[in-house]
């Protein structure tokens, strides 16, 4: 391959990257721009806000909105949901990918079937149940129902990633004297790290954006999550749409996620890979 075709191909890749980034970020840019307009120019369609106003961000972090606390609650709920779902799903996915047993197809179907019933239709029975056992306004009341969508997603994704790992590697490790568990932990998990990490991100985001359960299970401002807090944003009057501060809040719930992914992806992937038996 000549250098010129390589350069040509490189250029093509970069053009593709630019296209992908533009596609994903252009609407988000509009969100950012809208959040930086002052209330008066909220209807403007200029590409750069002028003057740039941080009033919407100040409004979001106004102490009465409790948005900082809400972000923290979201972090706790989505974080624990992700960890729990991944943990349970890893066991299950391992069995699905590596063990042969009866009813496997049935169980996989059942797991996905459960994630199909609309969340809205399971909230009220759960609300009654949780009221009875005193779980209203607790983290577990939000975490446990979130498992209904997080767990199937995690099980199915992990199963595909685990199955993609060649069996030979694991067996080689077992020949070397690893137990089945060790072989899994030291060989399969590191190799499937990108898949596990992606599953974690996707589960986390799904839980982070959950609204209905969080709204129904809490009535104390101190326990509300970010999406619930956003739903309570207001303009100065009932009819006025607080579009600017909603967009600001949208930016504020999205950006930390992305930064977190950036910071953690190397570390987590590295961590998962570190156990690899060389």
């Amino acid at each position, binding site marked *: 391959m000549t250098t010129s075709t390589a350069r040509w191909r490189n250029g093509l890749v970069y053009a593709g990257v630019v296209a992908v980034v533009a596609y994903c970020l252009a609407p988000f840019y509009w969100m950012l721009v809208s959040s930086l307009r002052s209330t008066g120019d909220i209807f403007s369609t200029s590409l750069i806000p002028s003057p740039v106003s941080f009033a919407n961000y100040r409004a979001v972090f106004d102490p009465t909105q409790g948005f900082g606390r809400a972000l923290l609650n979201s972090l706790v709920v989505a974080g624990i949901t992700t960890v729990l779902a991944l943990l349970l799903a890893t066991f299950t996915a391992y069995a699905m990918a590596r063990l042969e047993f009866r009813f496997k197809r049935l169980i996989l179907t059942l797991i996905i079937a459960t994630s199909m019933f609309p969340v809205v239709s399971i909230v*009220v029975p759960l609300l009654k149940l949780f009221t009875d056992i005193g779980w209203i306004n607790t983290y577990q009341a939000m975490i446990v129902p979130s498992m209904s969508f997080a767990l199937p997603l995690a099980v199915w994704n992990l199963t595909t990633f685990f199955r993609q790992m060649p069996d030979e590697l694991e067996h080689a490790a077992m020949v070397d004297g690893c137990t089945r568990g060790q072989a899994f932990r030291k060989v399969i998990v590191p190799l499937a790290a990108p898949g596990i990490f992606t599953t974690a991100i996707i589960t986390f985001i799904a839980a982070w954006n959950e609204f209905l359960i969080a709204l129904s299970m809490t009535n104390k401002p101190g326990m509300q999550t970010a999406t619930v807090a956003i739903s*309570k944003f207001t303009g100065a009057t009932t009819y006025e*749409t607080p579009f600017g501060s909603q967009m600001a809040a949208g930016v504020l719930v999205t950006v930390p996620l992305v930064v977190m992914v950036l910071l953690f992806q190397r570390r987590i992937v590295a961590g998962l890979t570190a156990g690899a038996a060389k």
Partner: protein
Amino acid sequence: MTTRTTTRATALAATGLLLAACGSSGSGSGQAGAPSFEGRGPITYVAGKDTTGTVQPMLDRWNKAHPKEKVTFIQLPTDADAQRQQMIQNAETKSDAYTVLSLDVVWTSEFAAHQWIDKLPEKRFPMSKMLKPVVETSRYRGGLYAVPSSSDGGMLYYRTDLLKKAGVAQPPTTWGEMTGACAKVKRLPEAKGMSCYAGQFQKYEGLTVNFAEAVHSAGGRVTDANGRPDVDTPEAKKGLDFLVDSFEDRTIPKEAITYQEEDGRQAFQSGKLLFLRNWPYMYSLAEKSGVKGKFGVAPLPGLNGPGSSSLGGHNMAVSSSARNKATALDFIEFMTSEENTATFLRDASLAPPYAALYDDKALIEQYPYLPVLKESVLRAVPRPRVVPYGDVTSAVQQETYAALTGEKSSAQALRDLQKALRKAVAR
């Protein structure tokens, strides 16, 4: 998760199916008897998110005076549908988490018929000092189920500068005068590209408000005194025709079919509209915009004279599954007192239910639109007070939208609407 919009979606989603699952479990709790308002102690006040920061200070005052009967403020999403969903969910699970509810005026019949709220002892409250149409919204089958805490009415915003320049001395009181004034203003060079009139015509609750206003302003009615639908009439047709014809001859700009309150405000403030039907909230915002000092308000025009507005606002009610109802009654009395609603008007510009406050000199100085608003509320007709309000307003939006977009003739739309309303009410 918009206020109006954001939350609506999710909240709706929430209630929608949510409740589905708990349906048949309501074992008869037998609340049909007269409720007794007993028990004192801590209660909760449940309302949409307070947009103005005036509610909590008021609650603090109450709590200071009643240390053993403290009120906790539970704020629901800003979106009205989301609020209703949460309240229904609370009622269906017979929870005592909510005590005093702040209800939108159109929900009273539904909440009363389902016995989600208690019938109130009428003599506890100064109903005679309140504006009559406002009090109407708090009754079901003659009984008092809620106490008005705030009101709202539509007004006609108009450009004083342009009317003056075109030689129109008075704001129009009829639709004919309004289009006549438009024709004159349109000849001015400044009026290039302007449209005459707009209201709220997107397919949502605002369309029901505007349809009802048009019909009432032409002498028709949506439902009769007993709540039976009555829209297939020549009067109602004249009302609907005003809107349909205005869309057709571009008196109303064609993009107004997508307008909610804020879109119309935007168009008016950027000088695209000569007349706009909107709520009082817009007044202070327009005062900060490009049309500052160039606009005024008047009562809504009608077919042969001043028209009538639909009513907005909120009423306070007691959740039937709550505890400490004696405290709840006292609290409602406190929140809806003339003195405290005056405070809400001063600090939060909420239109009060009391007639006297509209004539208060100091308040008029602060809110120059008060006299117009009083006239508007006094001539107002409540939107249909029926139990299945959700079905009724859906049908109204459905048929009105079809007529406005030219999908049906107005006569056909009204015939179909009459049929749909009959069915909804019979259900």
